[in-house]
C-alpha cells in the first residue's frame, strides 16, 4: 500500500489536474446538499420564528421533539426513506428510490431539525415584543418578518453553515437511498466509501481533502461574520 504521504500528494495532483469524474462527484454533492438546504430553510425559519414568538399549549413538547430529532442517526432516516420509497413501500409509485430527489429528501429531513433549533435560538435572542414593536411602527407583516430576520442574520448564517456541513458530510442515508450510482447519485462521501472498499485510496483522500477544505472555508466564513457582528454591536 502507498504511504499516506505519497497517496495524499497524488490526491492533490488528481484534484489539480481537473479529473472530470472527481469534480463531477464534487459538483453533484454540492448540488444535492444545496437543494436540500434551500428547500428546508424557509420551513425551518418559519418554525423557528413561530417557536420563538408564538407561545401556545404544547410549545415545550414541540421543542423537545425537535431536539430529539437532532439526535436521530442518519442511517435511521435512510432506512425509513428506503422503506417508504421502495417500490414495495407506500410511496413506491413515485419511483424515487436511488435518485437525487430521494437523497435531497433525506438531507432535507436531516438539516431541518438543526435549522429549526438554531433559528429558534437565534430569534429567541430578540425580545418577544420585537414583532409587536415592528407592527406598531406600521410595517407590513412581511416587512416585519424580514426586519427581524435581518437582525439575527449572523446566527442564522451559522445555522445554515452547520446544517450544510452535516448533510454534505453524511454517508449513511446517501448510500441507502442514493445507491452510489456513478454519475447520478455518487456523492463525495459515498465515493470515499466505495474507493476505500476498492483499495483506491488516492481518490478517497482527494475527496476527503475537499470536505476538509470545505469545512475550513465555511467555518472561516462564520468566524469572519461573527467577528464583524461583534464589532457592529459594540459601537
Amino acid at each position, binding site marked *: *500500500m502507498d504511504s499516506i504521504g505519497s497517496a495524499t500528494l497524488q490526491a492533490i495532483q488528481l484534484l489539480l489536474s481537473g479529473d472530470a469524474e472527481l469534480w463531477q462527484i464534487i459538483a453533484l454533492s454540492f448540488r444535492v446538499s444545496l437543494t436540500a438546504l434551500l*428547500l428546508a430553510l*424557509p*420551513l425551518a425559519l*418559519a418554525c423557528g*420564528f*413561530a417557536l420563538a*414568538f*408564538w*407561545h401556545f399549549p404544547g410549545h415545550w413538547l414541540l421543542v423537545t421533539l425537535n431536539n430529539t430529532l437532532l439526535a436521530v442517526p442518519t442511517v435511521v432516516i435512510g432506512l425509513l426513506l428506503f422503506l417508504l420509497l*421502495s*417500490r*414495495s413501500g407506500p410511496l*413506491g*409509485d*413515485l*419511483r*424515487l*428510490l*436511488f*435518485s437525487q*430527489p*430521494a437523497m*435531497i429528501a433525506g438531507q432535507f429531513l436531516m438539516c431541518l431539525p438543526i435549522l429549526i433549533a438554531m433559528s429558534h435560538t437565534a430569534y429567541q*435572542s*430578540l*425580545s*418577544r*415584543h*420585537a*414583532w*409587536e*414593536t415592528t*407592527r*406598531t411602527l406600521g410595517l407590513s*407583516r*412581511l416587512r*416585519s*418578518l424580514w426586519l*427581524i430576520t435581518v*437582525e439575527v442574520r449572523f446566527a442564522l448564517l451559522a445555522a445554515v453553515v452547520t446544517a450544510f456541513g452535516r448533510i454534505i458530510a453524511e454517508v449513511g442515508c446517501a448510500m441507502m437511498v442514493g*445507491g*452510489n*450510482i*456513478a454519475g*447520478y447519485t455518487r456523492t463525495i462521501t459515498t465515493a470515499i466509501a*466505495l474507493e*476505500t*472498499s*476498492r*483499495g483506491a485510496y488516492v481518490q478517497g483522500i482527494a475527496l476527503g481533502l475537499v470536505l476538509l477544505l470545505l469545512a475550513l472555508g465555511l467555518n472561516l466564513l462564520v468566524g469572519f461574520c461573527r467577528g464583524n457582528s461583534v464589532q457592529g*454591536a459594540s459601537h
Partner: protein
Amino acid sequence: MNPFKIDGLDREPIKTGTSLATQQLTALTHHQLQEALITMNRLLLLFILLFALSGSLQANPQVVRLATTTSTYNSGLLGHLLPHFEKQHGITVQVLSVGTGQALKLGQDGDVDLVITHAPVAEEAFVEAGHGIEPRSLMYNDYVLVGPKNDPLNLEQAEGILDALEKIHQRNRVFVSRGDDSGTHKKELELWELAGLQPGFRNYRAVGQGMGRVLTMTSEMKGYTLTDRGTWLAMRSRLDLALLYEGGIDLANPYQVILVNPQRHPGINHRGARLLRDWLLSETGQALINGFTVDDEPLFFADAN
C-alpha cells in the same frame, strides 16, 4: 443601536396588571402573527408539492437499473462493458453494486430492472417464487482461498478446499467471512457444510462488508478468506496476501443474469432490461467479457452457451 434587544427581564409575556388596551393589542398581534404564519405555510406547501412533482412518476425508458454484486462492479468489468452498450443503444445503465442477497431483494421489490448475481440456490428460489424470469448463464470465474504470504498452514499442499478449510478450523486461524448474505458468503457457508464443520470457531470473523474491504481486513489481520478471483486479481497488488488454494468443482462461481418479472412490477423498464440482457449474451458482449483482463489475466469467462 439595536431596537429589539431589550433586557432579559422584559422577556416574560405581559400577563397581570395590563390595561384592557394592551390586552387588545396583544390579542391583535397574536392574530396577525398567526396570519403571517399561515401565509408562510401556504408558500411552503407549494414548495413541497413542486418538489414532490419534480420526481419523475414514470420509469425513464432511457435508464436501466441493474443490481449486481460487488465482484462484477469493483473488479472493473462493468466499467469495461457498459459504455459500449450505452453508446450503441443510447441507454444509461445505473449500477447498484451490492451483495447478491440485497441484489435479489431489490429485484423482488421491483427497485431494479434486472440482476446479475452468483448464488445458484438463491437464484433458483428467486425465479421459482416468480420474482425473476428467464435466468441465463452469463459467465463464470472461480473462488480462491487467500491467506498470509508465508502460508504457515501449508495450504498450497492441501488435498482440496475442504481439507484446507479444516486445517484453518483445527488450528483456529483468523478467517474473515463476508457475513453479508452475498454470493461469496453463501458459497463459503456451503463449503463449511460440505466439510462437516461449524464455522463459528473463535477466530471466525463475520464482518458484513463487501469483498474489497474483506480482503483489506484479511490482509491487516493476517487471516484467511474466500474470495472471487476477479476481486482478488483487481486488488492483490495492494494486499499482503497470497493465493493459497484454487481449482476444483467446489470452487466454481457461475454468474447468471435474471430479468425482474414485469408482471409483478409493471412500472419497471423491462424493454431496456431485455435489451441489456440480450446484448450481454450476444457475441459482442461475450467477447468483451473474455477480453477484460487485469495484469494480462482474464477475470471472467463468457458462458452464454
